[in-house]
């Protein structure tokens, strides 16, 4: 870290990088947040676009929080996203391994994975309704699918990028494939898997709106669509921002996990 950052200051010498090291990350995050808020306020106050300003959205957020609707929506969506996402990520790891490790599994599974990755989640909904009804199952399934498909590509790439010498080292210590997978391949491809998991988390949240088209009775995505009937932009914004913030927090958690899980890496920074 020190080597890189000192050279940054030395070689580029921009104002930013000179100021950089003195401001703690959180203060900068806050600054970025305020700048974003200011821009939003400016373009809405200037009536450049037909969007609600921060105050309006804030007021609506307070209202929705006060009558308990926001909490209910968060709870409903969070449950779905977490279940779908965790199932997706959990399945992606063994499937990615199979694809990366066994040629035959790759040849059989991979085209389907690649094919379905391209299909929008919206298109899966009719099938999900037909096979799973309109309760929680199809909603979770759509989210599951989205996160699974992102994760599996990354895991697969991670598996095929594992350094051969580490596999060899494990083999000569008597490890079978059954041991090598959890004890060598998974740790060695953790950085890749975590990219997949983080992208998968994004897919999960971005899909919650589509998922909640299926007869949801509450949820942030449902609230957004309902608000769309009346074009109630402040409510839409409250839902969107809540989704973004919840996703951001979960991502932060993942990043912290990641730092712990990959502390063995010799990193550039």
């Amino acid at each position, binding site marked *: 870290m020190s080597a890189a950052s000192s050279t940054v200051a030395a070689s580029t010498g921009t104002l930013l990088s000179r100021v950089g090291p003195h401001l703690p990350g959180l203060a900068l995050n806050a600054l970025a947040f305020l700048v974003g808020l200011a821009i939003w306020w400016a373009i809405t106050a200037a009536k450049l*676009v*037909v969007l609600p300003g921060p105050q309006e959205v804030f007021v609506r957020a307070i209202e929705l929080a006060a*009558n308990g*609707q926001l909490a209910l929506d968060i709870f409903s969506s969070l449950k779905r996203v977490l279940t779908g996402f965790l199932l997706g990520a959990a399945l992606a790891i063994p499937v990615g391994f199979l694809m990366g490790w066994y040629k035959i599994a790759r040849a059989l599974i991979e085209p389907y994975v690649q094919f379905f990755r391209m299909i929008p989640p919206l298109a899966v*909904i*009719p099938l999900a*309704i*037909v096979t799973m*009804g*309109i*309760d929680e199952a199809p909603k979770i399934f759509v989210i599951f699918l989205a996160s699974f498909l992102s994760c599996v590509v990354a895991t697969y790439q991670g598996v095929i990028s594992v350094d051969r010498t580490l596999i060899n080292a494990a083999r000569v210590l008597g490890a079978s494939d059954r041991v090598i997978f959890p004890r060598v391949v998974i740790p060695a491809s953790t950085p890749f898997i975590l990219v997949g998991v983080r992208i998968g988390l994004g897919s999960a949240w971005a899909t919650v709106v589509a998922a909640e*088209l*299926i*007869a*949801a*009775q509450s949820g942030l995505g*449902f609230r957004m*669509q*309902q608000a*769309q*009937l*009346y*074009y*109630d932009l402040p409510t839409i914004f409250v839902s969107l921002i809540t989704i973004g913030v919840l996703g951001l927090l979960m991502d932060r958690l993942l990043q912290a996990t990641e730092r712990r899980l990959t502390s063995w890496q010799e990193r550039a920074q």
Partner: protein
Amino acid sequence: APAVLSLGSPARAQAKPVRVGYIADYFGTSLTAVASDQGLWAKHGLEPELKVFTNGPIQVQALGAGSLDFGYVGPGALWLPASGKAKIVAMNALGLSDRVIAQAGFNSMADLKGKKVGVPESTSGDMLLRLALAKAGMQLSDVEVVKMDPSTVVSAFASKQIDGAGIWYPLVGVIKKTVPDLVEVAQSADFFPANSFPSAFVARNEVAAEDQDTVRKMIAVLKDANDFRAADVPRSVDITAKFLGVPADPLVTESKNGKYLTSAELAAATKDGTVAGWLKGLNEQFVAFGKLKDPLDPKDYYLGDLYAG
């Protein structure tokens, strides 16, 4: 927030469970809300499981998949029963909320000649646009039709990317906030009663075929609620707002864009073929859109005998 409000009713023990879908606007919710508020479900021996949806086609899909027994569809989705995917059990209200709007300076359909007109394809807005063009003696090709979804129409019209639009209230109201000087060059009321845009309640085909008893009970509930609403629209608005947990204002506006017939009037209209006329009128449009090739005859999918009988 919607829940079964018929708690403690004596009929509940023998009540027949039904799964009923609705859409969370005034037209889509008011009868369900009134029925719940007035204890009409229990009165007629039903125990509803109410499910909210955001559009009609998904409800029809859910009916098809056996996940739902009854649903609510707007006029734009009535081609689904017309193609045999569900049965209509009751008419709801007649919608008068559609408009053809134009930017300031365009005062008639003729002014829109050669201009960009945005329209959500095959919705009641699309139907109104076609009717209005025909009335003005114009062809569809006389304007540049840009197909877009409803919220895109709002954004595009408000930012003056399009010159006109076939769209409805409350979205027209939203647009008015940014473009107060927009002009309503055509409205649904202009075509009433010859062309009407009714919304309706539909039932799963199997339920309609095999469980007429439940269908009768459902119709009874809807009739009672219908008459309550027709008698006191403001009260029904309040009940609906409370039921949905939303502010009443937009519902009030919406409620003013509808025509609410009593169940007696609807039964009469069923008997004299008026209702079939509405449905046939819609079917013609659906055929014009290319949605349907050979629509069923209304008598094959509107259970008018049960309603009027």
